[in-house]
């Protein structure tokens, strides 16, 4: 089967920085791809690039390709892109309060999408809005529809955002940290809902997150980003069993969440020293300044992605897996 979205060599450029560089990934129909990274890794900009909503100061490099359902999105006319946005590609954001219009009822906000894209009449749109609220499991939707955003809890607002996003049955939903602002019990509900909708509506989901725990349970495939580059890609099981990139390894061992029964009296957590360092003017591996395995040669050029095992990519030549024998072929993506 051909993939739904294929990103090739995506580079996002500002005057003084390139926060995303040579990023390639693809996602199949009704698949969940997780993009994991810390703030500054370029994951959110990537999402905006897919929506063609980058800030005006940013530009996508000429050699970048974003192909969605066979159509090339880079260089697409603004009008055509508008047509695609909300209808075939939808997006939800981290903070549902600021993404909803505070002076409009949630019903109107949902109906508006339907009226714009599906050309529904006001009454039909309202009926459909109630159905959508039901779909996202909001109790008493016929009453809730006339509420304003501030009358709803954070979890409810995120559900409304999801309702708006899936209103036109998009083929791809980009969820940018959809649960970061929510409590853990609510987070589980929202992720549950997203996954159910993915199956019911047969849409693909790009889940952008910094939370490795979320990734493990909800994604089909994981891309780990660091300083604008993809440093590792794997199936979640493989990634957690046997992380290959020193950064992924560092993250997994630094996380108290993934080290059960470890207490401060037992010793300190493993740290990754320093903080995310962008590769502006930096030759070589972007993770080198924080890496415990860095060698002199890491400073010479950016390590290419290699294929250490089936369905895996890693951008570190010195990684040794405890399980798989490193593949000799050095493929460049």
């Amino acid at each position, binding site marked *: 089967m051909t993939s739904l979205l294929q990103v090739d060599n995506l580079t996002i450029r500002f005057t003084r920085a390139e926060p995303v560089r040579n990023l390639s990934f693809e996602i199949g129909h009704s698949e969940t791809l997780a993009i994991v990274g*810390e*703030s500054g890794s370029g994951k959110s900009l990537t999402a905006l690039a897919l929506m063609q909503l980058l800030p005006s100061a940013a530009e996508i490099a000429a050699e970048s390709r974003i192909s969605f359902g066979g159509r090339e999105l880079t260089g697409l006319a603004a009008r055509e892109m508008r047509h695609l946005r909300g209808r075939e590609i939808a997006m939800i954001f981290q903070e549902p309060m600021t993404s909803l219009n505070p002076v409009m009822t949630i019903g109107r906000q949902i109906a508006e999408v339907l009226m714009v894209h599906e050309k529904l009449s006001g009454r039909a749109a309202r009926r459909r809005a109630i159905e959508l609220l039901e779909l996202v499991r909001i109790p008493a939707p016929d009453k809730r529809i006339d509420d304003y955003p501030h009358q709803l*809890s*954070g*979890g*409810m607002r995120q559900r409304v955002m999801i309702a708006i996003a899936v209103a036109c049955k998009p083929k791809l939903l980009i969820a940018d940290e959809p649960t970061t602002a929510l*409590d*853990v*019990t*609510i*987070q*589980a*509900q929202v*992720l*549950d809902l997203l996954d159910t909708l993915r199956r019911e509506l047969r849409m693909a989901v790009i889940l952008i997150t*910094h*939370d*490795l*725990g*979320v*990734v*493990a*349970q*909800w994604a089909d495939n994981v891309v780990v980003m660091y300083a604008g580059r993809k440093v590792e890609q794997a199936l*979640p099981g493989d990634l*957690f069993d046997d992380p290959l990139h020193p950064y992924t390894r*560092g*993250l997994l061992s*630094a*996380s*108290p*969440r*993934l*080290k*059960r*029964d*470890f*207490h*401060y009296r037992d010793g*300190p*957590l*493993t*740290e*990754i*020293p320093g*903080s*995310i360092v962008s590769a502006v003017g930096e030759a070589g591996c972007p993770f080198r300044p*924080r890496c415990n395995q860095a060698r002199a040669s890491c400073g010479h050029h950016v390590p290419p992605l290699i294929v250490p095992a089936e369905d895996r990519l890693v951008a570190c030549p010195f990684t040794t897996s405890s399980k798989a024998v490193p593949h000799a072929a050095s493929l460049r993506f």
Partner: protein
Amino acid sequence: MPLLSVSDLKTHYKSRDGLLRAVDGVDLVVERGETVGLVGESGCGKSTLGKTVLRLVEPTAGRIAFKGEDITTRDQKSLRSVRKSIQMIFQDPYASLNPRQTIGEILEAPLIVHKAGDRARRQQVISGIVAKVGLPADSINRYPHEFSGGQRQRIGIARALLLSPELVVCDEPVSALDLSIQAQILNLLVEMKKEFGLSYLFISHDLSVVRYFADRVLVMYLGRIVESADNATLWSDPRHPYTRALMDAVPDPARPRQAAPLGGDLPSPSDIPTGCRFHTRCPLATDLCRTHEPEFRTVAPGHQVACHLASHIH
């Protein structure tokens, strides 16, 4: 005598929706050298509780005693001596530092206010603490926005430790930080605890962080403590259905995915359900739960639970 003891503390606010019972009858004790973790979802009142303990928010009722001394009604002036001994570390390292002061100014002011030595002595203290929290020595001439989130949190920790406090209230100190930075800050807090013999009241929504960091854990729901136990007991034998749900909700790669453990939202603290305040979301709720508020009972030595069914849950 415990370092901090709080009994039947209530903090109520007037709001547009009526009386907001943010903290609604909390008892807690922090012993010397102990780290007490306080876990709960946003809106459960844990932050307000932390601020009330410091008298940054005025309590409505109850008693706060620090080293046996009642500080509940002390006026702000006579509180000043206590302020030295109880400090706070904030969640948002961006908001908790005055953007218009250099790090040197930020760190010097507490020493001036508490008359800790002349200028030379103050500089000495500041450079000492700056080195201890792992900041470069030239930091003191820089402004907060020149630092990354992790570094700012180090500055916040330096400020809190400057006056050699005995108790530090940490309000979500790592929640705003990236994962790779969280471990650095947690390790620093542990190190500081050892170095200065600190006690912590560690407030967090993140169970895994509390699990690593706390000696004893309190679980808070809608203004009340619903379960209290030492760390190991709580994780091996949680008795309150809410505690269990919180644990199950944490995504864990080692475990297959399961349905969300809890439905519904946290009710508003201005409209607390009658009976057990958790019954609206509790999968085990009975009629008794709907009408009678459970007592905070001891189910095992050092393990208390506010649930009618606690003895049946294992």
